[in-house]
């Protein structure tokens, strides 16, 4: 079969720091969320090795801990390398080619942003792009030395991507109330009524978003399919853990503007003259036990 092996080879031909090309990472736009893909995921959020994704945010070994500390010696490095200074707080579920991620990263340089994408090649593209961007930033001469473009805040060190099926494994990655923002941008509309359970927003899945979101956290949705917009608004607004943010307030949110402009799909809709429907929801506090 033609395709993947060739593409893979082409992907690897680029030299380090060169931006990956989308055309070598294309993949069919639909994936079956119910199937057992060969996914890798931690058995528990604490088992996730975030250090590989955000090496700049790895906790340094405190000077006070002696190297032969009986607690630390077992796997001294293992233990500290896996420790992070920060946790992921922003998740872009179904990040695609990562347009939103790379637009958000400089705007919140101290916040860890993670894209989650079910398509292997696409997730790989985002990872390669993050690597390339980081390298570019590192190699760029400091502004004082007369650089053409000013350095990007955070140097893209705070953005990464993993391949994951969030509909099944969201709680494997994030602990309770860990996230402050979740983006659901241009999700697969799954037009057929029979496939509605495959939609990223559903009455039952919303409970999982509520679980990983801290009270006050936000869910941002955008789509060009009006039916899906109505569906998402209906289901999120009806969920007792969420309340829709008034349109005026939502428009004032910088994230909404970025989401409209910078997502890859958003640009495509723009080109085709489509419409974009935005809705933002706030995670409410859990009520007391009855």
């Amino acid at each position, binding site marked *: 079969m033609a395709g993947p092996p060739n593409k893979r080879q082409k992907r690897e031909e680029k030299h380090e720091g060169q931006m990956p090309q989308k055309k070598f990472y294309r993949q069919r736009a639909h994936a079956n969320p119910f*199937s057992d893909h060969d996914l890798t995921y931690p058995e528990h959020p604490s088992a996730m090795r975030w250090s590989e994704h955000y090496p700049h945010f790895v906790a340094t070994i405190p000077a006070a801990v002696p190297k032969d500390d009986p607690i630390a010696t077992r796997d001294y490095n293992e233990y500290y390398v896996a420790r992070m200074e920060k946790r992921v707080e922003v998740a872009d579920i179904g990040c695609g080619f990562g347009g939103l991620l790379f637009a958000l990263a400089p705007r919140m340089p101290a916040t860890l942003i993670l894209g989650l994408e079910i398509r292997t090649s696409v997730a790989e593209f985002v990872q390669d792009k993050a690597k390339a961007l980081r390298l570019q930033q590192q190699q760029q001469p400091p502004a004082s030395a007369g650089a053409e473009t000013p350095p990007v805040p955070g140097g893209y060190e705070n953005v990464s991507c993993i391949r994951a099926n969030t509909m099944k494994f969201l709680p494997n990655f994030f602990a309770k109330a860990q996230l402050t923002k979740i983006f659901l941008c241009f999700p697969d509309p799954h037009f057929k009524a029979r496939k509605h359970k495959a939609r990223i927003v559903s*009455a039952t899945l919303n409970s999982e978003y509520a679980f990983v979101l801290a009270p006050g956290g936000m869910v941002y949705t955008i789509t060009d399919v009006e039916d899906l917009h109505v569906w998402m608004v209906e289901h999120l607004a009806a969920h007792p853990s969420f309340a829709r943010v008034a349109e005026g307030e939502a428009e004032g949110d910088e994230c909404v503007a970025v989401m409209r402009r910078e997502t890859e799909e958003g640009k495509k809709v723009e080109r085709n003259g*489509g419409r974009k429907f935005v809705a933002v929801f706030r995670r409410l506090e859990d009520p007391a036990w009855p």
Partner: protein
Amino acid sequence: MQHPFQCIASVQLPGQATGEEYLAAACGPRLMLVNAGKGIVAARWSTSPTNATSEDKYDEAEAGERPAKKQKTSNAASHAPNIIKLTVSPNQQYIVAVTDDKFIHVLEIVGHGELKELSQRCMPKRPCAIQVLPDNATIICGDKFGDVYSLPLLPSEVAPIQDVEPGAEDGEAAKQEDPAFKPSATVLTVHSKRNRMALEAQMQQKNFTAKKEPLKFEHKLLLGHVSMLTDVIYATREVEGKQRGHIITADRDEHIRISRAPPQSHIIEGYCLGHTEFVSKLCLIPGTDLLVSGGGDSWLGVWDWPTFKLRRKFDIRDAVLDVVEEVAQRADMDTTEAIKQADKSVVVSGLWTAPFTNAKGKQEIALLVACERRPSLFIVPVSRLMLKKDQKTTQSRIDYPVLDVACVGDRLIVSVDGRRDGSPCLRVAQLHQAEETKGEVLSEKDEEMEAKLQCLMTSSKDIPADDKALDDLLYGVGNLRKRRGWDAPGDGAGGTEVDPTSMPMDPNHTEVVEVEDDLTVRKL
């Protein structure tokens, strides 16, 4: 050939004298209520083949856009559907039976153990776990699609037609909607040539019925996983002087989720994560905050469920392999090969608790564990679950695979798959602990009661049984195991080579593995 009893449950009738314990036993499509003390079958009830036709009707309505995929139930319409789950309401007045045509049947026990069917309701997907809540008025039911519904135990007289789903409007909205079909896609949202053609075809189509027919009885969607549910239990815990209800759900994707009970079932309290294979059974240990879970891992998870902490991985691998070795020896087979085969496929198919009197004469609780197709029942006193060094289980050697267990009085009734040689399919034992065996719990056969239960065998002799159908009915848990590496993407990312001989390639495996179109599939 004797059809084994796939589910059994104990029933305590009000005002029942000691020695008059009742047992409900499901044998294929038939449900029997037996007075175990006297050895009399008190009532019989059977599912009727007519159900199958109404199921088909439902499926047609559901499909809408195209015919639903063929149901792979082994039952043709002419056969009466088998009972796959059995539960008794806490007040012992009702028996709820689930059949493999997705129906929930509620039966009332009237008079001296007669059965009267009150209702039958067809669920949208095959139920996999069912329980009647302590209020004796609500059924919770988890299904293969990952959803948990609650339904009233006794449907109200006037069945309200509504699809109560958090978020969805009720039936009204559906009715008001324009009957003419309008595709959700527009020329602005589909771009590829083929999709545009499909859209055009859709636009020309008339009288299109995409409406999913709502369930015709009162029900509520409580929560859902995007995975097949395997077990659902309701648990209460006293906090600050008040009882708090929880729903604990387990799925094929290694999760155990703890949600609040209705009306706050949308709130997830936490997850008990740590399993690396499917979870198939959950079991609460009475009088403690411990939850035991089992499935495709070679250990049982012992959780402190209010804090979601894994307290202990209780290894059962050695115990299972001992049984495998012994079976192989008896059958004159290569023991090393048998062990090698079995090592990768420990499948916990049943977890139960049973009271017993310990060596000091005190009441204690034992955990009983059954593994699929293994002719043994593993017994662990609950007090030992938390002892760090002790991994020992007592095996109660039973000659046939264990299917279900019920406690009737102080007796343990074990349903076994003894289809072949007409030996009793129901074994009766009593647990006791002897000082001289270092506190191990032993089971002692109760021949007298076993003989009395023979009446069930005689009244189920006429139920047809063939090997393949029985295997499908009784041994489905092993099929939950994921076939890792099988649908690995062809571009090599994370694709693991798997020795095809080690794969559990079950031809009866009904799980459809869908593969993304543009990925090359590595053929075995």
